[in-house]
């Protein structure tokens, strides 16, 4: 699972049936600098399926790969799935 910040959403007029009930978020993956509250994003943003109800500005934990499709009943073409909406982050890397 990786942490990312929700920066927008995507709406579709037609989609694969198994996606019904969810929505799509544009997510900016967070690197070390972003977790520490500074720095610029270095990775491209991605689109993530969400059925928890995250909104713009939320930090979410998303899963990529095979596990993203696992929560669905049938085989589903999906790359990223929102698994949790973060309440608090305690990020304390050791001081150099």
């Amino acid at each position: 699972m990786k942490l990312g910040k929700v920066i927008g959403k995507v709406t579709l007029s037609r989609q694969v049936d198994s996606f019904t009930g969810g929505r799509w978020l544009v997510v900016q993956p967070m690197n070390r600098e972003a977790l520490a509250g500074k720095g610029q994003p270095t990775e491209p943003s991605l689109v993530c399926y969400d059925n928890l109800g995250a909104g713009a500005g939320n930090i979410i934990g998303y899963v990529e790969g095979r596990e993203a499709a696992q929560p669905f009943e049938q085989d589903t073409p999906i790359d990223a799935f929102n698994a949790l909406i973060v309440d608090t982050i305690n990020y304390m890397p050791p001081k150099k």
Partner: protein
Amino acid sequence: MMLCRVDGNVTATVKHASATGWRFVICQPITADGAELGSPTIAIDPLGAGLHSRVMVTTDGKYATELLKCRKTPVRNSIIGIIDS
């Protein structure tokens, strides 16, 4: 399997039902000499790893389904060992 350092934790009220009751820690992949490699990932922590401890993290999703006792969990990363030396 990844060698990681525990750099913190996250809390979440709203999450996939299978993850209820589990602790989520921020794992920073590192090299053997402690240099940081890439972005941190989130793993479930069944062992209770402390802050800045070095841990072994598996990306085996099948193991996570057994650990969480849920076939449909999206969780993939889990801590499988705390490194002494």
